[in-house]
Each structure stands twice: as C-alpha cells, then as structure tokens.
C-alpha cells in the first residue's frame, strides 16, 4: 500500500516560500494498492494535481470524503477526471440526516459558487454514503466511522493484505475530556486507528493554540500523539497543518509530538511525499 500526500494543509490553502516544505494545498491523500486500486482521501486543492497525474486508463476512481468543509471539497471542481467522459468516479461521504450527498455537494458545485453544476459533470459519477459496514473497493477493505468534528464527519480505515492505515484528518477526540485520553472505549476514532501501520491524524495546533480553539474540531500534535499511542498505531503522520504555521513551526510541533509518544514514529505530512505501508 502506498500513501501519497497531495495536500496536507488545513482550513485554507497557504502556498508560499514559508510553507514549501510541508506544502500549501489542502487535504488530499492518495492510497494505492499493489494491483493499482486507487483511493483518494478528500478533495482539497491538492486533488487538482493528482487528477493530472492519474493514468488515463484507470478503470475507476474512488474519492472518500471525510466531511464537506470547503478545505476538503474545494478541489472537486478542478479534478480533471470529473469532467472526462466515460471515467468512472465514485464519491463517498458522511451520511446526513437532512440532505443526501448529492444535495450537499451541489451547494458548492452550482452557481453562484461554481459555474458548473454537479449534474453536468461529464464523467460517470456515482455518489454513496460512507459504508456502514466494512466494504470492499478493489483490493482494499474500507471501514468508516463517525468521529468528533463539527458536522457529519467520518474517519476511514483502509486495509490490504495485512497492511493498514487510518485517516482522521479533522478530529477533536479530546473535546470535553480531562486527562485525555481516558481509555479506548470512550475515545472517538479509536477503533479506526487501533493497531494501524500508519495513522494520518489531525495535528493542526500546538497545545496552547488548541486551548483557545476548543470545539473547533481539531487536535494539537501532542493530543494526536497520545491518541496514536493509546490506539497502538505504529506510525503517526501529523496532518491538516494550520495555515498560519510555517515549516519551522510544523517542525517544532512534530518534534513536540514525538516526545509525547516515544513508542510511535512521528512525522509531519509533506506534500509530494509517499509512504510505503
């Protein structure tokens, strides 16, 4: 399983010299199986370049959205395969009690916010709720579960041939918890992350910053490390970097996280970098 980061930034794209190391595009991660099965986790601005890089003969593309905040869907309108006649594109997203996925995505992909309506994309597009039970997509088994973040939000666990990764891009499991974490049973996202080889997890803030942003739906890198340690994840990749953090700031936050979970290999997600799981 190969995990490639096309967008690592949270909230809003933040390109520029000070963010070149970790990247400025918003959330987009490609997960590729040995047989070529391709999953795309989130459709932030990073998905534009990914769309250009995908082989034109790929049989099917599955985009798994964690939630529908703009930094996770903004790239959909610029994803080339979306507008390629005959391409089979499946988009999965968290279920809502009020409006289906098409209706919610259409709020963005329609005038006045976007010139092309979702119904007018030229690919063969299918929309699905995130699977309620573990589902097979090509070579992968994909599980989804609701996690703590404002609005319907899911995390994903993806496995293939014993290799596993979890993606909890926007996640605030420490919300309202004193002495986080307080045990697996009462920790949002634990089952998704339990024992995975690679955990891609929200690490937007420093501890000090998070104290001022409780309820915003994100974690500090130290909280991410504690979460990873409790879950028994082998490797933590801090993700969803704050747009105000330059590369040096992210370096410091990752280093702090590593100190909080010595048994977990900790790094920061870097745009353009791939991991072999």
């Amino acid at each position: 399983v190969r995990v490639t980061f096309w967008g690592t930034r949270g909230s809003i794209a933040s390109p520029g010299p000070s963010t070149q190391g970790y990247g400025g595009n918003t959330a987009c991660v490609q997960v590729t199986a040995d047989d070529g099965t391709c999953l795309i986790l989130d459709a932030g601005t990073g998905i534009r370049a990914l769309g250009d890089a995908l082989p034109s003969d790929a049989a099917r593309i599955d985009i798994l959205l964690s939630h529908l905040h703009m930094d996770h869907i903004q790239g959909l309108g610029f994803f080339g395969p979306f507008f390629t006649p005959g391409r089979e594109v499946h988009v999965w997203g968290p279920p809502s009690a009020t409006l289906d996925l098409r209706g919610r995505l259409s709020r963005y992909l329609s005038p006045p916010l976007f010139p092309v309506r979702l119904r007018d994309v030229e690919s063969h597009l299918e929309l699905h709720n995130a699977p309620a039970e573990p589902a097979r997509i090509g070579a992968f088994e994909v599980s989804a579960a609701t996690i703590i973040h404002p609005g319907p939000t899911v995390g994903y666990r993806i496995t293939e041939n014993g290799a596993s990764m979890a993606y909890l891009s926007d996640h605030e499991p420490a919300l309202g918890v004193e002495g986080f974490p307080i045990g697996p049973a009462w920790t949002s996202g634990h089952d998704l992350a339990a024992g995975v080889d690679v955990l891609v997890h929200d690490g937007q803030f420093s501890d000090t910053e998070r104290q001022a942003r409780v309820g915003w739906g994100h974690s500090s890198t130290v909280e991410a490390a504690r979460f990873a340690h409790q879950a028994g994840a082998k490797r933590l990749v801090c993700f969803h970097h704050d747009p105000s953090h330059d590369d040096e700031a992210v370096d410091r936050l990752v280093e702090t996280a590593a100190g909080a979970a010595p048994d977990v290999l900790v790094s920061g997600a870097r745009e353009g970098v791939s991991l072999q799981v």
Partner: protein
Amino acid sequence: MLDDVQGCCPYDDGDRLVAQRSVELILFRQLATSLAVPVFLVDEAGDLVFLNEAAEGLLGIRFDDIDELPLQEWSTGFRPHADDGSLLPPEETPLVMALRERRPCHQRLNITGIDGVDRSIEVTAFPLEGGRGRLIGAVAMFWEQHEG
C-alpha cells in the same frame, strides 16, 4: 454501536472484549460530565454506561465503582416505586420506555439509592438516535423533589 463500523475492532480489556463507544455516546458523556443536573446514560441494550457526578450523589453510587451496570441490575437496584410503595417494573420506568418505544418520557417516581436513602424524583428520558437513524442508547435526567 453505530451502524458505521465502530465496534469492528474490539480491544482486549483484561478478560473481556470491549468495543469503542459510539461517538454520540462519547459526546453525551462529555457533555454530562460538565452538567450540574444528574445524568444517566445507557447504551442500546439499556445497560448503564455512564452517570455523572450529580447522578452519583442522587443514586448513592460512584461510577468508578461500577463502571457498567446491566439493565436488569440498575432498573431494580434503585427500587423505583410509586408513592404508595408499589414497585415499578423496569418496563414502566422512563428510561426503559424511552429506549424501547423510542420516544421521550417524563415521570415522577421514587427511588432508593444504593446508600439506602429514599428520594422523590422527576425523570425526563429520551432516546439517542445516531446517523442513519440507528438507536444508540438513551439519556435520563433527574430532578430531586424536596418537600415544602
């Protein structure tokens, strides 16, 4: 558990397998922790999974001492009874009604705490439904009635 996949990876907690609670229960526990009103939280089977400090005082037990309590134990253990002393069967208590009938329920009744103290209380209970309409559990909030 959610009809998402939570619970797919139960972890080993000593001699039993325990699955992660649904996010809705986790969030409600976190809310209850900060409330002054007594709150009692059960899962979809009706088993007690959390009570907050205010409820500990009212029911005469500590959550840390019990961790979880099966429906049959808590629904009889607190001896819910009417003013004439007749015991209320579990299925006539608000929390069980909320869970089984999936509707809110309010009732005045009497209980005997584990500490042996009789208390007159009002109970408001309501079901918790998560995404995809799945029953997650139920919540009861208590108000102690004081004479005079």
